[in-house]
C-alpha cells in the first residue's frame, strides 16, 4: 500500500510542480498578483507531497517491505534501524527522491521567506518549479523507487557495508543540501535576469550561505569518512567524485565574496550572476558524473545509459537556458560601479580570480582524462601530483591575500595602514614558521610555509575579532571562516609532512613501533555485531611496561552482502592521531598490521567546522538584521513600483 501511496504522491507532486512553474513564471509580470499566490500554494503542496513520497519510502525501508524492489535490493532485516533509514538514500532511486525533497524545501523557503521584490521571488519560485518538473519526470520515468517485486523475497540484499557508517549516513543529505541549495541562487540569478532586478544578490544571500555551509560540512564529513573508513590514513584522494563536490564549493565561495561587493556597491553584478549560474551547473554536472556511472566508484549506484542521457539533456537545458538568458539580458543589469585600485572590491576580485582558477584545475583534472579517452582512446591518469603542482600553488597564493581584504575599505583603501595593522599577524606567522623549523623534524619547506601562512591567517582573524568586538556579525563571521582555513591548512600540512607509518606482520605478543608509540599485538578475537561478524585485533598501546590503552581495529564480514570492510581504530589526543588498521591473516595467528601517526589530523575537519560556524554566524547575523541596506532597498522599491 505504501508503495502505491508514494507513487501517487509523486504524480501529484508532478502536477503541482507544473502549476508552480507556470504560475511562478506568470507572476513575473507585475499585474499577475494572483498567479504569485497560486505559485506559493503550489510550492507548499509540492513540499507536502514530496515529503509524503519520501515518508512512504522511508516507512518501507524501516518495516523492511521487500515487495518494493529498491528496498529488497538495498536493505535487509538485520540492519540496525539507522542504516535502514540511511539506506533510503544509499541508492540511486532514493537519493534522487532525497534530491527532490531538498529542492522542494528550498523552494518553500524561497516562496515563504524570500526577500527582494515579489516579481523576483515569483520568478525564482517558477524556475525552481521547472527544476522540480525535470527531476520528477526523471524519477517517474527512469528511476522510480516504488517498483513492486512479485513474489517478494523473504530477505533483502542489504546495503554496501562501506555505506553502513554514521559518517556516510549523514554525508549525502548534507551534500545535497549544498548542491540543491545552489539551485536557489541559480533561480534567483535567472529570475533577476528576467525581471531586471538589481538587488537580487541581497535576496539570494541567505540561500548562498545555507548552501555553502552545507557543502562545507558535507565535504568535511566525506573526507573524514574516507580517513577513518578506507584504512590508509589519507583524507583527500582527488578522486573524481570528491572533485565533483569540491568544484561547486570553490564557486560558491567565490560567489559569496563577489556577491558581497554586488550587494554593497553594485560592483561585479553580472559576474555574480554568472557565478550563481556556474555554481549550480557544476552541481548538476557533478550529479551527472556520479550518477551516470561515467566515473565508477562507491558513489555510482547504478549505471544506466537512459538515466545518464536524461540528466545530460537536463543539464544542457538548464545551463544552456540560463546562459542564453545571461547573454540576452545581462546588459540590462550592468552598472559601472567605481572603486579605486586599492580597495576591498579589488581584493574580492582577486579572490575570485584565484578561486575560479583553482576550480579550473579541478575541472580540467577531472574531465580531461575522460575527454582524451573519448577523443583519442588514450588513457592517462591525473592523480595527486598534478594537483600538487597546479591547485596547491594557486590556492596558496589566494591564502596569502586573505588577511588584506577585510582591512581595506570599500571604494578606497589604505594599503599602508592595512599592512601596518597586520604586523602582529606577520609576527605570528614568523613565530609559527620558526617554531616548526626548530621543534619538528623532518624540516620541510612546504610545511614551514604552510604554518607561516596559517599563522598569518589566524593572526589576522584574531586581530579582526579583537578590534571589531561589538561590530557587525558579518565581520566576525568572516574572521571565523578565514581562521578555519588556517586551522585546516595546519592539519593538511601536519599530516602530509610528518606522518609516520609502519606496516608489520605480527604474531601474538610481538610489538611494533610507530612514531613515538609502541604497540603490542595481543591477538585477534571473533566478535559479532548486529549484522556482521568481525575479526577484532587487540593492540595494546604500551607505556613503559604498562598498557595505556587498547586499540581494536576490525575486519568486518557482512554475510548478507557477502562483503568485507575494515574498521580502523583511532586514538586521538586532539593534536595527534594514532591510527591502526588490521590487515590480512598471514596464518598461525599472525596478522598484517598497519599503523600511522598523523600529527594534527583532527585539525583538518576542525577547520572545516570553524569555517561552517563562520557561515552560520553570518546567516544568523543577517536574519536578525531585517532592514535592507539603503541602496538596494531603494532599487527593489523602484522595481516593485514599476
Amino acid at each position, binding site marked *: 500500500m505504501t508503495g502505491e501511496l508514494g507513487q501517487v504522491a509523486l504524480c501529484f507532486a508532478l502536477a503541482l510542480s507544473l502549476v508552480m512553474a507556470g504560475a511562478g513564471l506568470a507572476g513575473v509580470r507585475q499585474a499577475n498578483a494572483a498567479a504569485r499566490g497560486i505559485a506559493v500554494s503550489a510550492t507548499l503542496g509540492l513540499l507536502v507531497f514530496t515529503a509524503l513520497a519520501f515518508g512512504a519510502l522511508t516507512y518501507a525501508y524501516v518495516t523492511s517491505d521487500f515487495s518494493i524492489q529498491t528496498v529488497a535490493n538495498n536493505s535487509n532485516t538485520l540492519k540496525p534501524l539507522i542504516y535502514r533509514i540511511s539506506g533510503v538514500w544509499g541508492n540511486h532511486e532514493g537519493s534522487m527522491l532525497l534530491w527532490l525533497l531538498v529542492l522542494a524545501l528550498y523552494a518553500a523557503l524561497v516562496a515563504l521567506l524570500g526577500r527582494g521584490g515579489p516579481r523576483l521571488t515569483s520568478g525564482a519560485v517558477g524556475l525552481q518549479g521547472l527544476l522540480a518538473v525535470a527531476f520528477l519526470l526523471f524519477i517517474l520515468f527512469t528511476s522510480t523507487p516504488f517498483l513492486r517485486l512479485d513474489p517478494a523475497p523473504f530477505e533483502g540484499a542489504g546495503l554496501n557495508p562501506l555505506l553502513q557508517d554514521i559518517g556516510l549516513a549523514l554525508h549525502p543529505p548534507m551534500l545535497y543540501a549544498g548542491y540543491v541549495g545552489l539551485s536557489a541562487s541559480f533561480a534567483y540569478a535567472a529570475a533577476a535576469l528576467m525581471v531586471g532586478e538589481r538587488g537580487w544578490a541581497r535576496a539570494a544571500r541567505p540561500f548562498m550561505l545555507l548552501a555553502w555551509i552545507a557543502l562545507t560540512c558535507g565535504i568535511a564529513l566525506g573526507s573524514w569518512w574516507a580517513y577513518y573508513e578506507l584504512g590508509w590514513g589519507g583524507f583527500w584522494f582527488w578522486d573524481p567524485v570528491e572533485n565533483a563536490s569540491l568544484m561547486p564549493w570553490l564557486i560558491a565561495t567565490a560567489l559569496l565574496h563577489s556577491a558581497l561587493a554586488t550587494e554593497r556597491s553594485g560592483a561585479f553584478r553580472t559576474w555574480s550572476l554568472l557565478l550563481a549560474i556556474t555554481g549550480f551547473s557544476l552541481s548538476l554536472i557533478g550529479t551527472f558524473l556520479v550518477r551516470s556511472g561515467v566515473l565508477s566508484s562507491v558513489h555510482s549506484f547504478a549505471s544506466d545509459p537512459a538515466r545518464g542521457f536524461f540528466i545530460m539533456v537536463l543539464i544542457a537545458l538548464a545551463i544552456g537556458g540560463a546562459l542564453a538568458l545571461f547573454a540576452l539580458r545581462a546588459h540590462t543589469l550592468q552598472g559601472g560601479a567605481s572603486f579605486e585600485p586599492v580597495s576591498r572590491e579589488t581584493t574580492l576580485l582577486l579572490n575570485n580570480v584565484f578561486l575560479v582558477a583553482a576550480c579550473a584545475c579541478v575541472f580540467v583534472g577531472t574531465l580531461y582524462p575522460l575527454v582524451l579517452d573519448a577523443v583519442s582512446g588514450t588513457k592517462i*591518469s591525473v592523480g595527486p601530483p598534478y594537483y600538487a603542482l597546479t591547485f596547491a600553488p594557486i590556492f596558496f597564493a589566494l591564502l596569502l591575500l586573505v588577511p588584506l581584504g577585510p582591512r581595506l575599505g570599500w571604494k578606497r583603501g589604505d594599503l599602508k595602514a592595512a599592512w601596518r595593522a597586520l604586523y602582529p599577524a606577520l609576527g605570528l606567522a614568523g613565530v609559527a614558521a620558526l617554531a616548526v623549523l626548530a621543534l619538528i623534524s623532518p624540516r620541510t619547506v612546504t610545511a614551514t610555509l604552510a604554518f607561516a601562512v596559517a599563522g598569518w591567517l589566524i593572526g589576522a582573524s584574531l586581530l579582526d575579532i579583537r578590534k571589531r568586538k561589538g561590530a557587525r556579525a558579518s565581520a566576525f563571521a568572516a574572521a571565523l571562516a578565514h581562521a578555519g582555513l588556517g586551522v585546516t591548512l595546519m592539519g593538511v600540512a601536519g599530516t602530509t609532512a610528518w606522518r609516520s607509518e609502519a606496516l608489520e606482520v605480527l604474531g601474538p605478543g610481538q610489538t611494533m613501533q610507530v612514531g613515538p608509540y609502541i604497540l603490542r599485538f595481543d591477538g585477534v578475537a571473533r566478535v559479532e555485531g548486529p549484522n556482521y561478524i568481525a575479526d577484532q585485533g587487540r593492540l595494546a598501546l604500551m607505556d613503559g611496561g604498562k598498557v595505556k590503552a587498547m586499540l581494536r581495529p576490525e575486519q568486518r564480514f557482512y554475510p548478507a552482502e557477502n562483503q568485507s570492510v575494515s574498521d580502523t581504530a583511532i586514538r586521538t589526543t586532539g593534536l595527534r592521531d594514532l591510527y591502526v588498521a588490521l590487515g590480512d591473516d598471514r596464518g598461525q595467528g599472525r596478522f598484517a598490521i598497519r599503523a600511522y601517526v598523523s600529527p594534527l589530523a583532527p585539525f583538518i575537519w576542525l577547520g572545516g567546522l570553524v569555517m561552517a560556524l563562520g557561515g552560520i554566524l553570518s546567516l544568523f547575523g543577517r536574519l536578525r538584521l531585517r532592514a535592507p541596506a539603503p541602496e538596494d532597498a531603494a532599487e527593489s522599491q523602484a522595481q516593485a513600483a514599476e
Partner: protein
Amino acid sequence: MKTLAFLLLMTLSAAAAVGESFSDPAMEARARDLQRQLRCLVCQGESIDESGADFAADMRHLVRTQMAEGKSDAQIQDYLVARYGDFILMKPPVQPNTWLLWLAPFVVLGAGGAVAWVTVKKAAAAKG
C-alpha cells in the same frame, strides 16, 4: 596474457629476492615515493602504494626488484609505461596531448588576471 605470465614469474622471483621492505631507510623512502607515483590499474584511482589489491602487491614487488637491480626511478617508470601506457603514471607526463591539461589552470589564472586588471582600470576611471 603473456605480460601476465611474465609478471607472475617476475613476482615469484621477486618475492624470493626482495622482502616487503628494504632495510636501508633511504632505499625504502625511494621505493615508497616511486610507489606513490604509480597507479594501481585494477583499483579506483589508488596508487600501488596504498592499494590492498593483489595487482598492487605484485607491482610493488616488481618495483622493488628493479630497484634492487640498481635501476633508476626513470628507468623503472619507462619500463612500466612501455608495458601499461601513460595510464600507470599518477602524474600525467607533459607531452603534446597533455599540454592543455597542464596549461589550462594557468591560462585561466592569466585570463582572470587580465579581466581583473581591465575591470579595476575601468572602475577607477568611472569615478566621477
